């Protein structure tokens, strides 16, 4: 049974998808997501791991995809946005859920929520990841 998505890769990336594990640069202070071996802003390799899971985020921009790649038909239209976490100012590319495109506005506050983002066919792994949605309660 061929797997379309590598199982070791899904396992390796679980903290990134479940907890929003990111890399804070100890040289310039910026937060990298996804985390990499060097800071994408200043090139430093002095990084520390942090998690962004407890932060709300601000919606910077978004796009609505009516013709997604194969496998996402049931999630149409897909809303993909760039959000900035409120405290750490990390910028993330993320799926936006539980909202119609007409309900979104620049600068609105969103909160992280775990969702199923893809399935490897009928028999393969189910992949979960943090997405963002308008908060249950505006505080």
């Amino acid at each position, binding site marked *: 049974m061929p797997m379309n998505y590598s199982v070791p890769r899904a396992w390796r990336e679980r903290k990134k998808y479940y907890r929003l594990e990111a890399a804070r640069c100890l040289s310039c202070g910026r937060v990298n997501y996804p985390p990499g071996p060097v800071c994408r802003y200043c090139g430093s390799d002095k990084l520390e791991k942090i998690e962004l899971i407890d932060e709300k985020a601000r919606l910077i921009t978004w796009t609505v995809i009516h013709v997604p790649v194969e496998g996402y038909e049931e999630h149409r239209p897909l809303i993909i946005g760039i959000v900035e976490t409120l405290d750490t100012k990390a910028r993330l590319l993320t799926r936006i*859920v539980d909202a119609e495109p007409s309900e979104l506005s620049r600068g609105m506050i969103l909160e992280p929520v*775990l969702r199923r983002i893809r399935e490897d066919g009928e028999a393969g792994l189910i992949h979960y990841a943090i997405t963002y949605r308008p908060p249950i309660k505006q505080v």
Partner: protein
Amino acid sequence: MVDKPGIVGWGSYIPLNRLPLDEITRVWGFQPEMPSSLNVREKAVAGRDEDSVTMGWEAARNALRRAGIDPSLIGAVWFGTESKPYAVKPSATILAEALGITPVTMASDMEFACRAASEALRISLAAVSSGLVRYALVIGSDTAQANPGDVLEYTAASAATALIVGPGSEAAAVIEDSYTYVTDTPDFWRRAHQPYPLHGEGFTGAPAYFHHIVSAVKGLFEKTGLGPEDFTYAVFHQPNGTFPLRVAKMLGFPKEKVLPGLVTPYIGNSYNSSALIGLSRILDIANPGDTILLAPFGSGAGSDAYAIRVTEKVLEKQTLAPTVDDYLERKKKIDYALYAKHRGLIKRIR
């Protein structure tokens, strides 16, 4: 006196989509009075990107906010569901990892129709009392399935509730005592590889739901010397909006003690979350000194009865996470077609 364990954090989750039950009548040609005879108006429907794991995650996040503890202090994650995303592979490890509880914890999925999470609660009480763990996380979460056109489709719904059990000294509500009653009663089942459950028509009431709940609650009363007059609230498993009121009457509880914890009329039966979301809604509004009778039920069949006393810590925790009513108010009505898509009732080649 031993420090009795209690609930240090609680939280629920209800998905955004609601199907008005008149839609089921329209599509399947039932009598128009079906929804009112069940005392259920709408049911909550999990989206295409949700399942019992994602819903359980959000309920647990709310419980963690109210508990105010480091998730890594949790020593057991027990997940009660009858709608596991995988037939084999624990959901509890996905949840433990995503909630920041791994790796030093017990974790497993439990199955007892709608009662698995209640068994998890009883085991958690034992695990905390014995000192085996400091905190245990109990999650009841279901995206309940029903054969399209079966009467069960009116009530099979989606929601989740999580409880963090810990030392009574930190608890919003102390569990004073509990009692369990089970027999082999085949009122509802689903065989392996079958997509939908079957139920013994007319068999789910008297010999199953009513007999087991009444026996568990009477057993608790005998064991403790308590009676209906000793409780501020009573919460029963709620497969529809009428059974809990009938069983309350049989046990001598007035309707007023039951209504605050009766959530099924608004969202349908959320199976492992059914009685627990009622408890969650009561804890959202409870005052110190209030007492709660909780009696979940699961087909197959069994019921547990708990005597719960609310402490002064409840007040500071109530505002730390969204309440059940916050989720009840956040809703979007959908029609049968969208419901069918969300619940995977439309067969596609994938």
